[in-house]
């Protein structure tokens, strides 16, 4: 039980948060009748993915991915890991010396990917809202069942 709480829940809580958020968004997209509410669900889904990516790039005790311009003192991460896990980390550091040198700075790659994804997400959300406006023009409603009824007429 101790293993379960420590290894699965505490050490991986970021994944639980992203799963719960993502499922809220997915449920809204499937079950809600209103198109705007479906879009809000899509936005929540997107946010969950962004959270997932950014949390993957974190390193314990590391600083932001902006280096000190004149110092250049990084590396030798201050990750504090105790007990038998420390042995494993020592092995990993020996196997991946480049990763060991980079352990003091957060992984910049997920930040880059999500930075563009946020802005593109806003733009595509705008397109979706334009389509919803057009549907409202054409069918006089943004409720899915109403629109489907009017399409069949």
């Amino acid at each position: 039980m101790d293993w379960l709480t420590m290894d699965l829940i505490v050490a991986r809580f970021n994944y639980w948060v992203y799963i719960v958020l993502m499922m809220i968004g997915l449920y809204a997209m499937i079950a809600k009748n209103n198109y705007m509410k479906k879009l809000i669900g899509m936005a929540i889904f997107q946010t969950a993915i962004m959270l997932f990516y950014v949390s993957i790039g974190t390193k314990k005790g590391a600083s932001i991915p902006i280096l000190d311009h004149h110092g250049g003192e990084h590396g030798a991460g201050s990750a504090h890991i105790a007990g038998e896990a420390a042995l494993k980390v020592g092995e990993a550091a020996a196997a991946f010396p480049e990763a060991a040198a980079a352990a003091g700075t957060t992984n910049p790659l997920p930040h880059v990917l999500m930075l563009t994804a946020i802005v593109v997400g806003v733009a595509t959300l705008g397109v979706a809202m334009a389509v919803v406006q057009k549907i409202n023009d054409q069918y006089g409603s943004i409720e899915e069942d109403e629109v489907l009824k009017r399409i069949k007429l």
Partner: protein
Amino acid sequence: MKKVGLLTVLLTGALLMVGVFDFPAWGDPYSPANRYLSTHYVNQAEKETAVPNLVTAVLADYRSFDTMLETSVVFIAGLAIFAILRSIEGPLVQARKRTESREKRAEKRDAGGDGQDPDLIVQTTVRLLLPTIQLFAFYVVGHGHHSPGGGFQGGVILAAGLILVAMTFGLKNTLKQFSERRGLAFGSLGVLLFAGTGLLCALMGTQFLDYSVLEAVYPFTDEIMARSHSMLVVEIGVALTVMSMLYLIYANLASHGDMKKGL
């Protein structure tokens, strides 16, 4: 539908939770995502590009192809909104618009025209705030190499300033200052600046968007500083596109595509 949705969501959630067993622990510096490519960025990017903000370095140099196409996506999304909201209307919409305009005319007759003045306090506040917002946005774009910032962020701040003006002074007055035509020109200029920088590199004999050859173009630079300077040029292009496109998306959505009356 609600029960089917709930069942699907619970099933998918359970499958994802099973997948969590195989994920690396939170904050593990040796997780697969932190082992390979990103270590090169962290260890070498400042030596290779003289840019301490690694996010900007990766965004505008190592992954510049990706960023160029993302900028194009923002531009194309703006164009798509124009196409969607101003497409030719079917008979249903035309009939509805006719009745709507008849109703509106009747309303206007009753109310005696719409003389809505924006609030004086809000106007004064925005007048004071806007230069600060825009100055901060320029700082975010121009200083994005050394501090948190860059083209996307600065462009969004600029667009937020423009949208603030449109909400206070009315869309019509704002469009007089920053017209639709100018917005589209700025948007395409941004993409052109990005792609043009890449094309210039290709014309000078290396790969597309390999900035190091541009040292011949900028005065007093070496190969490393040329990459840093090109990043600034590219980020300005991104900021231009993002600013004008987000503003035009707002203007179109708020006025239902006819650019007459906003929120």
